[in-house]
């Protein structure tokens, strides 16, 4: 079992549902990132995914897309992201994972990237454009360092597919709540219940649910169904509109 899964399982003994939040490194700036993370941790977030910006974020919706592109166009470099991440993991003691696209790893060197992340004390990776068929080396390298190559389930995934994904994954499973990209609302309906049931039956890993989770109502709905609620676009919007200070109260309001 990866350290990440252990940490999450431990937390789940205390809380009915965990919260994972998201931010894009360097957007709107590392200073704001730092403040946002502080607010998140202080208000009980259990895990944070730090997105390393990429110029072609195909799986992301307009909000996160814009954050990626602005971060890059303001000159943010991968090295800065890694150094910032090291600083953060040293300061805050919850699990941090990297979310990014495969080219960032590929260009850096997959093993070198994983080693660097390991040194920084990153617990896992979400790489939405890297299916296990293409990511064998990555999966093996991450697992060999006891890090989590987090896999993604989608509503379109069959049970067989989920089982294969789960075998390749570790830490937890990121269950995409619906079709589409990040940032749009999700209707949690009967289809969703069937989907989550399918996810459960395919793996013993904790299940995180993301895409379109915005409110206490959403989190409450997931409570008992999933293990982790993922807040993505919503905090970016909040920071854009009201500044970093608004993040704390928002997180506090979710549980």
């Amino acid at each position, binding site marked *: 079992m990866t350290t990440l899964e252990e940490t999450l399982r431990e937390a789940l003994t205390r809380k009915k549902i965990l919260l994972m939040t998201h931010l894009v490194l360097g957007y709107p700036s590392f200073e704001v990132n730092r403040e946002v993370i502080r607010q998140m941790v202080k208000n009980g977030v259990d895990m944070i995914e730090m997105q390393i910006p990429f110029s072609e974020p195909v799986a992301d919706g307009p909000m996160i897309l814009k954050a990626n*592109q602005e971060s890059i166009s303001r000159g943010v470099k991968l090295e800065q992201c890694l150094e910032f991440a090291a600083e953060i993991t040293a300061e805050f003691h919850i699990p941090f994972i990297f979310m990014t696209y495969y080219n960032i790893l590929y260009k850096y060197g997959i093993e070198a990237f994983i080693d660097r992340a390991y040194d920084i004390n990153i617990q896992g990776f979400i790489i939405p454009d890297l299916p296990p*068929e293409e990511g064998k080396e990555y999966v093996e390298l991450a697992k060999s360092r006891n890090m989590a190559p987090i896999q993604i389930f989608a509503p379109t995934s069959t049970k067989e597919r989920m089982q294969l994904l789960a075998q390749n994954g570790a830490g937890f499973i990121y269950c995409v709540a619906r079709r*589409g990209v990040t940032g749009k609302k999700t209707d949690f309906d009967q289809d969703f219940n069937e989907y989550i049931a399918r996810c459960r039956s395919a793996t013993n890993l904790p299940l995180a649910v993301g895409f379109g989770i915005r409110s206490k109502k959403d989190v409450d709905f997931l409570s008992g169904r999933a293990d982790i609620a993922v807040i993505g676009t919503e905090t970016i919007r909040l920071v854009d509109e009201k500044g970093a200070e608004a993040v704390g109260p928002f997180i506090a309001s979710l549980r």
Partner: protein
Amino acid sequence: MIKKGYYGHWGGAFIPEILFETFKELNVYFEEAKNDPSFWEEYLQLMSSYSCRPTPLTYAGNVSKHFGGAHIYIKREDLNHTGAHKANNVMGQGLLVKRMGKKRVIAETGAGQHGVATATMAAKFGFDCTIYMGEEDVQRQRPNVFWMEKMGATVVPVTDGSKTLKDAINEAFRDWVTNMDSTHYVLGTVCGPHPFPEMVAWFQSIIGIEAREQILKAFTKLPTRVYACVGGGSNAMGIFQGFLQDEQVGLVGVEAGGKGLSSGEHASRLAGSDASPGVAQGYKTMFLQDSDGQMLDTHSVAAGLDYIGVSPILSDLWEKGRVRFTAATDIEVMEALDLTMKKEGIIPALESAHGFVQAFKEAPDLGTEEAIVINMSGRGDKDIFTIANAYGDPSWKKFIIERAEQYKNDKE
């Protein structure tokens, strides 16, 4: 260790999980179609009755004489319905969509040609159609936007990133991951995740099959070299496939040299030294990217070549030395265009004119007992705004200014 969809170590299918089943289905239908001779029959029938296949191979006697070397032949993809080789791919995918029972198609477009072709196909097959087009390209290729809309398509200008082809592709993917149940993404070039490179290459192979037969008939022997411009690489792959087995035939891909290979403002992946291996838009190839793996802004006078990546099949053929790559600058392109119009009465698309540049450079060094073939991927009519601009044509400017005055007065 050759996986499906790989060419050497290029290609693959780097797709989000949500599309896994969609691609599985697409692969199944595509394999089925490939193995069903009646599908290709239907395809040929469609292309010969709706478009103008086989497209001719024109002997360019005047430029041949002008350069005094090899005999220059031009494969006339410009005479396809909608004016470019894009029709080949799009009509093929249209037949596949019909088989799959989907009712909506989406596409990215750079030069607008693929968008027009897709909108045309959608009208013909009765599909709903949305076209994503970088805002900069919407500006560069306005007439194409007009026709797409007139054929019933919705054109969405993409304002992200560099506002060109790559961003349109991203946006099309975003649509697809939302609507994959109803929708097929008609990728416009021989790039993207498997099976697209294989599929597009297959449909475009019709160019090379015809061209090989035609040159043998017209010249009684194989050409010394075959030239094609390379954006994503579909027209090049189309014609090259006809000659891949003929080792004596040199294959030359011509990329967008923009303002020069050392200017940083170009779109040369394989001809220059600015590209490096990467993975984006679902596949692995040589990309124009920085050391972090961020894609660079590219530049070309030809919207259809203005792209960061290149067909994984071509990256493989390049690596193996089977296809040679060169680049043509914007300025060289305008010169070749001018010469071709004046000497042959033929107007190549700005994209296609890149192939002409290199052919013209090399023709004089070949013998008069040799022939070369240029793939003219499309016609230049669509580029009137760009070409008139580039030539700074004063009467065109005057015309546009007068028209604008008229429109302004209409409004008041």
